[in-house]
């Protein structure tokens, strides 16, 4: 278990240890962990590891027991208020001792003052439920401690018969002027840089997934809705060998298998469905509808086998983010960024330099011309399906390892993939990459201005705006229409 570093943790975990280990009678836990006045069942969880910090607490524990009072019989209608006033802003927790809190009912029939004990804790039994006010007298606060919110020295609360209610008066170490010193947030990193890095990571994954979509469109004109399921297939195949089955292999090996399966699936899909459809001269619209049908079919087959919950790989599931000054990233995310960048550049080079790559671009450019110049178009298309499937599956593994594996993951990405490929210029490999980066980064940056649950809307709005200016996409070439 990683050691705590954040402030305030100390009190929480230590107090908790204390309660669990000593099974205090229910009325004694001034902090009121899970406390209720009518029904109280305490079945303490066992097996907590002993923390070294606990040693520091020995004097505190002694003090705690000194103030333990016997369990009092409670009346059915009596209600209880309780709380503790502890300054947790300093190096050590300082309880505010001897602070007076006046509690009065709204109708004036009840009024009593309670004083905090050596723990800073206080508790008062009220005759019945109703509306009350609790007022802390700031003058009785010990020197060096001040209310964090000076205008909230009085709290109004209502309480049911028989209920128990905790009230909190947050305090902090006081500065020289007697007011609370504000604890500045020490959150490291620059928000803008962090969002940029997160966006690049998301964008590169979208890019890897969408190259296949873009190339298939480029060579055959088909908008393949089932492409998202190839992404899911890749992630789930790797999950099969790394988390699902009892025996596991390394995630890298699993990713390799998943990539192969994705490629095979892409090729088989083309051979079994799309090649015959092309031969029979099916229209693009009917092929699009077929792909939607397959998308739904595959998605629910995966759901049937995998179940509806989010899953995680066994390897590298939890990695502590490392601080790089301006931003922080988990090591696996750094790997994903560089790895996908390398794969994408390699794909781009292959497309530009190799024979097959040139053939692909030729088919995408002008299919009839390519065919008449001796290129085996069907073979090229098959290769595009295989390569696209393999890349999508690999992208799925990456997405699964940085987020989670679920039956709908590819389908959720599909909209963003469409956006990315359209934005970059349909049918171009580098365009898909560029479009993906823009979409990924915009999704993150939009959260600066819009509520986060609308981040996709913002990114897609950008898509519309860019396409209004450049209808062919960022890298797409202008085409004459009509």
């Amino acid at each position, binding site marked *: 278990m990683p050691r705590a570093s954040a402030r305030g943790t100390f009190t929480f975990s230590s107090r908790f240890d204390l309660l669990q280990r000593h099974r205090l009678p229910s009325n004694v836990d001034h*902090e009121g962990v899970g406390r209720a006045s009518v029904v109280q*069942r305490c079945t303490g969880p066992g097996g907590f590891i002993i923390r070294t910090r606990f040693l520091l607490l020995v004097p505190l524990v002694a003090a705690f027991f000194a103030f333990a009072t016997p369990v009092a019989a409670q009346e059915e209608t009596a209600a209880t208020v309780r709380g503790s006033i502890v300054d947790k802003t300093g190096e050590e927790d300082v309880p505010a001792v001897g602070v007076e809190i006046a509690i009065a009912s709204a109708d004036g029939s009840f009024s009593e003052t309670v004083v905090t004990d050596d723990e800073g804790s206080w508790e008062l039994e009220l005759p019945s439920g109703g509306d009350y006010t609790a007022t802390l007298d700031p003058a009785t606060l010990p020197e060096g401690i001040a209310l964090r919110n000076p205008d909230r020295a009085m709290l109004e609360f209502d309480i049911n018969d028989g209920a128990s209610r905790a009230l909190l008066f*947050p305090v902090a170490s006081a500065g020289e002027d007697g007011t609370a010193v504000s604890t500045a947030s020490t959150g490291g990193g620059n928000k803008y840089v962090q969002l940029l890095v997160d966006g690049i990571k998301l964008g590169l994954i979208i890019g890897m997934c969408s190259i296949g979509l873009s190339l298939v469109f480029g060579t055959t004109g088909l908008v393949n809705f089932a492409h998202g399921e190839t992404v899911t297939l890749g992630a789930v195949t790797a999950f099969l060998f790394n988390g699902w089955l009892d025996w596991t292999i390394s995630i890298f090996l699993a990713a390799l298998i998943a990539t192969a399966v994705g490629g095979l699936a892409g090729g088989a899909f083309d051979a079994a469905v799309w090649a015959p459809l092309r031969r029979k001269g099916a229209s693009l619209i009917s092929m699009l509808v077929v792909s939607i049908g397959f998308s739904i079919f595959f998605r629910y087959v995966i759901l049937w086998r995998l179940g509806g919950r989010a899953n995680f790989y066994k390897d590298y599931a*939890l*990695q502590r983010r490392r601080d790089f000054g301006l931003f922080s990233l988990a090591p696996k995310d750094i790997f994903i960024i560089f790895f996908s960048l390398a794969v994408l550049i390699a794909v781009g080079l292959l497309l530009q330099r190799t024979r097959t790559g040139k053939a692909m671009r030729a088919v995408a450019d002008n299919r009839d011309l390519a065919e008449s110049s001796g290129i085996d178009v069907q073979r090229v298309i098959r290769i595009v399906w295989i390569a696209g499937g393999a890349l999508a599956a690999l992208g799925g593994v990456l997405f699964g390892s940085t*987020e989670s594996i679920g039956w709908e993951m590819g389908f959720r990405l599909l909209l963003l993939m469409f956006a990315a490929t359209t934005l970059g210029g349909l049918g171009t490999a580098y365009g898909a990459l560029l479009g993906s980066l823009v979409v990924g980064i915009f999704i993150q940056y939009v959260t600066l201005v819009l509520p986060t649950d609308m981040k*996709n809307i913002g990114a897609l709005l950008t898509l519309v705006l860019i396409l209004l200016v450049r209808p062919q996409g960022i890298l797409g070439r202008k085409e004459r229409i009509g």
Partner: protein
Amino acid sequence: MRNTLMRLLAVLMAFGLIAAACGSDGGDTATDDDGDSTATTEAMEETPETTEAMEETPETTEAMAEDDGGEDEAMAEDDEAMAEDDGEEAPTSGGAGDGVLRFGGILPETGNLAFLGPPEFAGAELAVQDINAAGGVNGADVEWLPGDSGDNGDVANQTVDRLLGEDVDAFIGAASSGVSLTVIDKITQAGVIHFSPANTSPAFTDYDDNGLYFRTAPSDVVQGAALADLMLGDGAETAAFLVLNDSYGTGLLDATKGPYEANGGTVAFENIYDPKAENFDAEIADAIAADTDAIVIIGFDETSKILTGLIEGGAGPSEKMIYGTDGNMGNALASSFDDPSVVAGMRGTLPGVDVAGELADFKGALDAVDPELEDYSYSAETYDAMVLVALGAVAAGTDDATAIAPLLNDLTKDGEKCNNFADCKALIEAGTDIDYDGVSGPLEFGDAGEPTQASILILEFDETGTLQVDGSIQGQI
């Protein structure tokens, strides 16, 4: 070609008119319709009044049931008249009594809330077993037609359409308040009971449901107060909230924030997120940057992703106080992690009773139904919902939902106490007014068809990732 188009248009318009007529629940939206459907709406408006009258005198059940039957016929006639007008057949009312009480399940087999499904299905199947073992309802065995609710309206609506066609008298579900809101109008306006074992959103209390919506889960007003008290008692002075964007999430956020701030806490950050988002990097980074004592996650299955992000960002349960609610406090959350100890120390609230700890017999019976149960959340509530409807059908002497619904609230209070179907059935048949105390608690339904007393469990994950019950809070509305 043009003719086909015109015909298509005509059919579409006919559908639209039916939808408009059926979709209006108070008559105020039906003004743009033709006279006939407005008349229908008025006829429908009368039903709730009759319902109120019936609530006052539960003794004269049978006469009332007949009365109601007459009302139903009138409605059915109106329906037919409307159908003739539009040239389309209206769906037959699912609430009509045909001798067999059928329960339809709209419970989560898939989606964000799928972990709540198995205990609810097990509770439902156990209830059917117990009811039929005691001789069924009105001389016939009850039937259980399970269906999936998913986590969005699409799946649930398909299930409801399918089950309405199979003459279901009462729907059990959904688990998610957001999903229930997408089907409540369709179900209650078909004259069928909508009974949820797990909806906790405060939105249902005042919902215009023709008196047909019920729930055995308490409103989140109670859970919110309990969660706020838990946090304040733990000394959490400032809190960040990450909240699922639906009726449950925002409802519970309000119910928690109110008492938390009133009693001294400060909400330094709140984020309402889309559970289907591709990633939660931005949300998580903001929550961590807020640097609060506590982080509260009100969500469903996506909590595992958010928690992963928090742990990776150095704000996991071992560093901060992390709180959850009934939507995510299940053993399933810990099993998402290869090393379940990472969730140790996360605390939260769950309306209900400690099935695993206190109801050994009930737990044993559930395990017999489904040996693979991991969680028991809302199993008791599901069981009680079905038993209560079955008792209502016994009292009404029919499986007609519109006759059963007005009796349900009274069956949970003021009368001779009984706590299982067989005993209660015998009492009702002997003409005694009963007070059904269920597995999940005393129920004691208020006029809104929901419990007025509730027990909220305080839960905490231990080092093995197992939820431990750390006390309970009794709340009243």
